[in-house]
């Protein structure tokens, strides 16, 4: 039997002549310390990418890339087709895992100085691989053609439209027509299924080829400095003196980690199920609060926290600066220390970016900047705030609720967080300041002067003046006290 297989193998190899180069590739010597758990993320990213291709092809057997039918074909996948929900869930979770692993891989490569000479081009190809992975995540979110996808495209179009002069043309090219419609979904399908995966496969091939040709980055040692003149011979010496064949010396860790990642994706898919689709992509259903997928939440937060005047420049210049910065990195620091122990600025940069993105993502999970559209018709004004109040003050509480103040201001921890909580507002603002704020607005609050009658304003302010914690005196205007004292003492109209 074994002889038979050997003969068949020989027959093929006589024609293909691939056995020798493959053996050379898998058995090439690698520095011993690189057989480490820190070096498994690249192969894990490739494994998840292959998983995405397989599940993606399976989904394409049922999915219909038509704005009229995409949503119902997703429903069919979720509910009618046997295990359709599981394949959708695997593809959705696979997407999240792929982005996460690609980012971890990038951080590891950065902190281990692997982008330095002679691996600059490997890093640059990697930057493009990251951008393509992000492109896959965004276009995949569009293919899940639901309300979030529809309005997400609107956000994309609004951002693209801000490019000077070319903006409207870019929007039409992106949408494939004047509005978000059938042509839009079809072109995102073409991008997600043909264009970007094709490029990804080609770039992954290049990336791997360079890893093989240039060798895996050695474990960085403090004091072992990269110099263009000597690096290649030093690396060669390292692998020939203290090297071990990649297969089987290092590969088992890659294999174990990849298997664990696949199990984790499957476990998430089984436990959490597929993502959406949310409501139908019907633009006449306006009772919706669209939100991007997890990996774009930080952008959602950034877009609401940037000052309006900075937004367009930041949107148009920011990505260019980041991408050019990443591409230039290996040329700006192509030599020198590789070890993170001797590169404090690199470590701080990673920490700063991680904390910033993490904070923005966390904020976007509960969107304190968005009005709560139904808060005014939800929880009533807490009863404890109405104990011992006058009829006028209770009327004010009614005005407060009916005029949707609650959508942006919370009372008793319920309501919007767009504006400050008003439980203790009387301690902060005097009566005059309250009247001015209500009528004229300001500080990101609309002016209500035209929408409140004088009687309503009086009642509302009377209610707001009761909102102070027990034991805290409400804010008072000292000058008014002085005037009142004058009136009492002199009996005049307050003129000194």
């Amino acid at each position, binding site marked *: 039997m074994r002889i038979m297989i050997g003969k068949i193998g020989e027959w093929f190899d006589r024609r293909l002549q691939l056995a020798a180069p493959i053996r050379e590739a898998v058995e090439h010597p690698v520095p011993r310390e690189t057989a480490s758990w820190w070096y498994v993320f690249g192969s894990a990213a490739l494994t998840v990418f292959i998983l995405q291709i397989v599940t993606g092809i399976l989904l394409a057997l049922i999915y219909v890339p038509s704005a009229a039918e995409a949503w119902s074909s997703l429903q069919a996948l979720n509910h009618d087709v046997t295990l359709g929900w599981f394949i959708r869930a695997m593809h959705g979770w696979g997407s999240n895992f792929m982005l996460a692993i690609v980012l971890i891989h990038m951080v590891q490569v950065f902190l281990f100085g692997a982008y330095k000479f002679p691996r600059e081009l490997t890093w640059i190809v990697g930057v493009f691989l990251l951008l393509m992975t992000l492109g896959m995540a965004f276009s995949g979110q569009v293919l899940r053609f639901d309300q979030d996808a529809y309005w997400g495209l609107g956000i994309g179009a609004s951002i693209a439209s801000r490019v000077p002069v070319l903006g409207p043309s870019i929007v039409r090219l992106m949408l494939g027509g004047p509005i978000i419609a059938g042509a839009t979904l079809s072109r995102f399908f073409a991008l997600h299924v043909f264009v970007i995966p094709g490029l990804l496969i080609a770039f992954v091939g290049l990336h791997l080829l360079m890893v093989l040709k240039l060798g895996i980055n050695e474990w960085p040692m403090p004091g072992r400095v990269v110099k263009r003149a000597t690096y290649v011979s030093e690396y060669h010496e390292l692998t020939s003196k203290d090297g071990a064949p990649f297969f089987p010396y290092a590969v088992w860790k890659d294999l174990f980690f990849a298997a664990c990642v696949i199990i984790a994706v499957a476990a998430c898919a089984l436990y959490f199920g597929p993502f959406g689709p949310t409501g139908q992509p019907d633009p006449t259903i306006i009772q919706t609060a*669209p939100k991007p997928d997890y990996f774009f939440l930080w952008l959602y937060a950034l877009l609401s926290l940037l000052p309006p005047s900075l937004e367009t420049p930041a949107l148009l210049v920011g990505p260019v600066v980041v991408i050019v910065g990443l591409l230039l990195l290996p040329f700006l620091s192509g030599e020198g220390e590789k070890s993170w122990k001797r590169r404090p600025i690199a470590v701080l940069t990673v920490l700063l970016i991680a904390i910033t993105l993490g904070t923005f993502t966390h904020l976007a999970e509960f969107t304190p900047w968005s009005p709560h559209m139904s808060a005014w018709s939800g929880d009533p004004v807490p009863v404890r705030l109405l104990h011992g109040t006058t009829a006028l003050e209770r009327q004010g509480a009614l005005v407060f609720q009916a005029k949707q103040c609650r959508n942006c201001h919370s009372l008793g921890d319920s309501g919007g967080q767009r504006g400050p909580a008003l439980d203790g507002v009387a301690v902060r603002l005097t009566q005059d300041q309250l009247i001015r704020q209500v009528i004229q607005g300001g500080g990101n609050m609309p002016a209500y002067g035209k929408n409140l009658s004088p009687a309503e304003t009086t009642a509302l302010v009377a209610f707001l003046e009761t909102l102070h914690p027990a034991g805290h005196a409400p804010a008072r205007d000292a000058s008014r006290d002085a005037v009142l004292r004058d009136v009492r003492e002199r009996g005049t109209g307050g003129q000194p």
Partner: protein
Amino acid sequence: MSNETTLSRRGFFTKMGILFNGLIATALAVPMVGFLLSSITRGRGNGYLSWVPLGPVSDFPEGETRLAIFRNPYVMPTDGKTVDTACWVRRIAGDQFQVFAINCAHLGCPVRWFQQSGLFMCPCHGGAYYRDGSRASGPPERGLFEYPYKVENGLITIQAGELPTPGAAIAALTGEKPPCAS
């Protein structure tokens, strides 16, 4: 004489072959690029815009703002529900109207009208507008987009057909008319 200056028969045919393929590629690129950019070229000169009816004026009580739905004039067979578009119609008095796009002037999310407070609010990043569409607060840099309208034979019609985006205002500077210029 060196070989560099003489052109062999074989070399000549190779060069001619490359040139021939280059010519064909260029000729084929013209329709391909034309196809790819057709959505841009078709939109030039308001090619996508038409007058679409919103309904009889009597559907919109004076002093109130109501949601109206129209079908986008440019339709493809695969569009499904996406060609139905919502807009806010404010009847000020008589034949005086304001028709606002549903899309927030910040990033295009659907704004909702609150009659009681007289405000449009956006659920995404918290933009707010007054009843006349002017900016009240939040990240938008301008008021709501307005559709040009006309009232004929008791019917209100608007000029629509293109997704209103903030960049259209920039296009106005370059001579191209924005889709919702008012």
